[in-house]
């Protein structure tokens, strides 16, 4: 595979990490959904490029799923949910956006340090893919942990999913059935979370998890 192919794959994978950082940077919900749509589209491009250079046509279906479901349908649906629930549209963070970004950089450094050392004798493209994919997964988890708003935690979970798909496509030969099951599990999780959000909202008039904490049994 030529150097240009490698560079373009690297470009998309690095771009995915960059868009993860952009998601951490956002402080408004609609903007976060738009950036998540961008995240899925960049993932789609990356998977499409992998399909082209690995000569694996089934990955094109993964690309299509990524664009249609995660790039269009899910952001639009979340947009509707936010409108219907009337959720407060500013994202409250636990430790401030600046320190969150510093932690994010730390996670990226950690995943690079670990993955590059562990995969020292593997193929160069796979190494880089796996290291960056782990970074995306960790950044998605960071988003889930440092956000108070349930919708932004859902978005964090979705971006973690994207990272896993990046890792899977980087390792050559991901079977189609795995992708179908992954996609369906994502869909199911999303429906479940959506239902729960509605129930929570009905019951407690809010989806702020901090407020929900107050309703824990006998604690004050």
């Amino acid at each position, binding site marked *: 595979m030529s150097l240009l192919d490698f560079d373009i794959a690297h470009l998309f994978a690095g771009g995915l990490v960059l868009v993860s950082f952009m998601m951490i940077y956002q402080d408004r919900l609609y903007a976060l959904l738009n950036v998540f749509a961008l995240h899925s589209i960049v993932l789609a491009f990356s998977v499409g490029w992998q399909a082209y250079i690995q000569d694996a046509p089934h990955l094109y279906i993964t690309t299509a799923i990524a664009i249609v479901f995660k790039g269009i349908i899910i952001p639009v649906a979340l947009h509707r949910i936010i409108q219907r629930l009337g959720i407060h549209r500013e994202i409250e963070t636990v*430790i*401030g956006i*600046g*320190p969150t970004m510093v932690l994010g950089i730390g996670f990226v*450094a950690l995943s*690079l*340090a670990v993955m*590059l*050392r562990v995969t020292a004798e593997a193929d160069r493209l796979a190494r880089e893919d796996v290291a960056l994919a782990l970074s995306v997964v960790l950044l998605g988890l960071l988003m889930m942990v440092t956000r108070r708003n349930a919708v932004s935690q859902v978005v964090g979970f979705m971006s973690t999913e994207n990272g896993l798909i990046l890792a899977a496509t980087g390792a050559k030969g991901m079977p189609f059935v795995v992708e179908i099951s992954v996609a369906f599990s994502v869909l199911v999780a999303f429906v479940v979370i959506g239902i729960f959000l509605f129930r929570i909202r009905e019951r407690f008039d809010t989806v702020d998890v901090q407020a929900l904490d107050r309703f824990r049994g006998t604690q004050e």
Partner: protein
Amino acid sequence: MSATLVLWCVGVLLAAAAIGTATARLAAAGPIVYGTSLVASVLALGGAVDGLLGPAPPSSATLPLGLPWLGAHFRVDALAAFFLIVVNLGSAAASLYGLGYGRHESAPHRVLPFFPVFLAGMNLVVLADDAFTFLLSWEFMSLSSWALVMAHHRVGENVRAAYVYLIMASFGTLCLLLAFALLAGVDGAYGFEAMRAHHAGPVTAALVLTFALLGAGSKAGLVPLHVWLPLAHPAAPSHVSALMSGVMTKVAVYGFIRIVLDLLGAPEWGWSMVVLALGGITSVLGVLYALMQHDLKRLLAYHTVENIGIIFIGLGLAMAFQANQVTWAAALALTAALFHVLNHSLFKSLLFFGSGAVLTATGERDMEHLGGLIHRMPLTAFAFLVGCVAISALPPLNGFVSEWLTFQAILQSPDLPQWGLKILIPGVGALLALSAALAAACFVKAFGVTFLGRPRSPAAANAREVDRFSLVAMFAFAALCLLAGILPGLVIDGLAPVVSGLVGDRMPVQLAVPWLSIVPIAEPRSSYNGLLIFLFITLSASLAVYAIHRFASRALRRAPPWDCGFPDPRPITQYTAGSFAQPIRRVFGTSVFLAREHVEMSPPGDRRPARLTVKLHDLVWETLYAPVAAAVDATAGRLNILQFQTIRRYLSLVVAVLVTLLLVLAIWL
């Protein structure tokens, strides 16, 4: 030859101390003591320069003092010669400054006897060639500076500052004692020659390095052992503060370099990560603490912590490269660290002299009561400005050159094979850049609030320029800052014997580079020419002034400043030190100091003013020192019952211990 010369100067200093003790209450005592110290320091400086640049091999001397079978060994090799230059340059300037400043001293009998002893102690530490002499001189240095900190013991918090200083100094000496004991090994070879030859195993080396870091680091001011520094340095008289911040911390750095790089040999690369991380954290925390201060001398003391962090970053880089045998990069990093040692002693002493001048002229150390001093003390203001520009690492002065060299060393890190180093070093580089930017902010605040604006108190409004000796000392150091900035190649070549002695390689010869530029590695990679930058700026500024005054209107009139239609001549409406630091406090302080602001507004109709309260937490003190102090107190309280026992109980205690020892002997034999 230079060793004997410096030893004679030390003897003169001790004699001056004796004279000072005897005649302290006479008016002539001050000039005699300071004058003698000045002469002795200058002579020692000459000897040190000869030792560094001269062709002669390292000179040594042995005195029949101390332990009978050991004697006291002294040696001047390249490293010692360089640090002797730093020490004696600072001592000479402080003595010169003291000739003028000492006239206003309220308790000369507490300062004059100890000042020459302090200088002598510092010189002896650098001269020492065996562990016993080293530790004895180290204690000399600590105790005489402690006495100087206690000089104004009736003022405020000085007693507490001296107490904390004494505890930390004792802790440091204990750690160094253990380090030397481990280096000496089982046979107890205390001479440095023997320690160099003796190769330590990995566990011993790790322990020695830890103790050296704790011992020398506490004296230098590494976080988290820095807590005594901002208490003790401001408490001493100003020329002593300059010596403590500018010179004594460098003697601690000398101790670290001597033990780790010289006696121990190149440590493992893992330890360089520890030193790098500590250096990075120290530099950022030091400058953030400094930004929160409004006491001028405490700000300068905290800033010393930042610069020590920068020096340790350079030392950590040198250790990392040395462990990987990349000697040319290690030479670059070590040169950067040593250059910063020289630079910091120059500009920090200058700044302390300036703050001493402000203290003499106004009686105030608090910036919130100063202001407008640039009109009343123009010469001091100019010298202080040069110090501020130098310490903020701005070209063409000297602070920029050492930071530039450190950055160039950081840029060589991708060649290292270890992943930990490859990822840590850019992080440390980011921390270094952050601390440099914050340092500039800190000194805009220090100069701006103290010297610019309008006077905030009658003392500031009635200040007068200080005496000639202080001014000469300040201007001499300001000139040296400029010279080191525009002729850095001379300093780098001067450092070459030191660096090649420690890492076995040196930077390329700078005097061979055309136009007096400095080229750290190779011409196309990077180069810098301080002299030309200085000339360009001067020429452009002069050209601009000439062109404007020739072709534009030259009219000028004075008027009140713009006030939006609400003239308020009260100086309280201008920015204070706290308000200047507020944006930075909001950005960094909320996480580092848990800074919280609280505004209490009085209810409508009530004419009382609103109150703004800012709470800052010193997390290092609260998480490390306060629990330890509380634990010690609690344990002491429990053990206190031993004071109140009956005679029978004491006898039973003695019997119990005796029986236990006999049991142990019985089991062991």
